[in-house]
């Protein structure tokens, strides 16, 4: 199991925490060159290099926000969006009652991580960020979220609960 990245968004649609784990080394046997003639469509992998972390976070927020709205429209108000999968990765989603959104990108073999994301919220975020007397109530720009205890707890959680 591989975890690629993890994001927390607050209710003001701001990314207050993001974390990436190193991707496994790319196999040297790259794609055959014959594919390069077909890149006129614009959605080839090279597009990825132009995006920064912030742009990625914005894209992910917009995406999960729209997917969540679509799911609610189609399935009724009590329906919740859980995850989606492509051939390359899987995105897991958990939303707290206070509209904080926890998003995790993993490989495709991972089962649904809603429970794990809930645990991250309950055992790490609430314990180390919400209950921290020095951290503000809201976290504009991510102030107070990325403290040492939270980061260490997250690392320990990821290695213990989701072994690679």
């Amino acid at each position, binding site marked *: 199991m591989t975890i*690629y*990245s993890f994001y927390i968004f607050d209710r003001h649609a701001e990314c207050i925490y993001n974390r990436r784990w190193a*991707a*496994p080394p*790319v*196999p040297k*046997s*790259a*794609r*055959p060159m*014959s*594919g390069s003639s*077909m890149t006129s469509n614009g*959605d*080839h*992998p090279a*597009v*990825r290099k132009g*995006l920064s972390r912030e742009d*990625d976070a914005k*894209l*992910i927020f*917009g*995406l999960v926000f*729209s*997917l969540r709205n*679509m*799911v609610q*429209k*189609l*399935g*009724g108000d*009590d*329906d*919740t*969006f*859980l*995850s*989606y*999968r*492509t*051939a*390359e*990765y899987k*995105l897991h989603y958990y939303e707290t009652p206070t509209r904080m959104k926890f998003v995790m*990108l993993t490989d495709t073999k991972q089962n*649904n991580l809603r429970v794990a994301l809930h645990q991250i919220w309950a055992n790490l975020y609430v314990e180390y960020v919400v209950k921290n007397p020095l951290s503000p109530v809201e976290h504009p720009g991510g102030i107070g979220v990325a403290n040492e205890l939270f980061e260490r707890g997250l690392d320990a959680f990821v290695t213990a609960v989701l072994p690679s």
Partner: protein
Amino acid sequence: MVVFCLFIISKSGGLIYNREFHAGMSKLTSNDYLMLAGSFHGMHAITKQLCPVPPTPVTPLSVAGAPAPSPFIGRPSGLEVLESSHFRMQCFQTLTGIKFLLFTEPQQPNVDVMIRRIYELYADYVMKNPFYTVEMPIRCEKFDRGLDGFVKVRS
């Protein structure tokens, strides 16, 4: 086994077919369906962009079975399965960019086989219909009947 509905989205993001087989999802106006199809088209493109790993390079082994190497291997695939607490949506994009969305129960097995069979029906009854213009809403009675038969036999 329950299949809720089927959407077909053209390569430019327009909804060209929608059909409900089984009640269970909210009823929306046709305008809403059109809007959802359009926004799904955009979301599908974003899921391609977000790919954190380069797509797995083709090994000679996996190519051996295919009739001809596709120019699309080595590209990220975009959203394939979406899960929610009430339904599961399988998206199948053909090489020509048409998307088939099939909404089923969350614990439905073998949806990918079903969706390929629906693609076959589409190829047989819609693409081979001389009165059908591409990118236009699908109004083919035989396709409707074929779908009905197929979905009923399986449920």
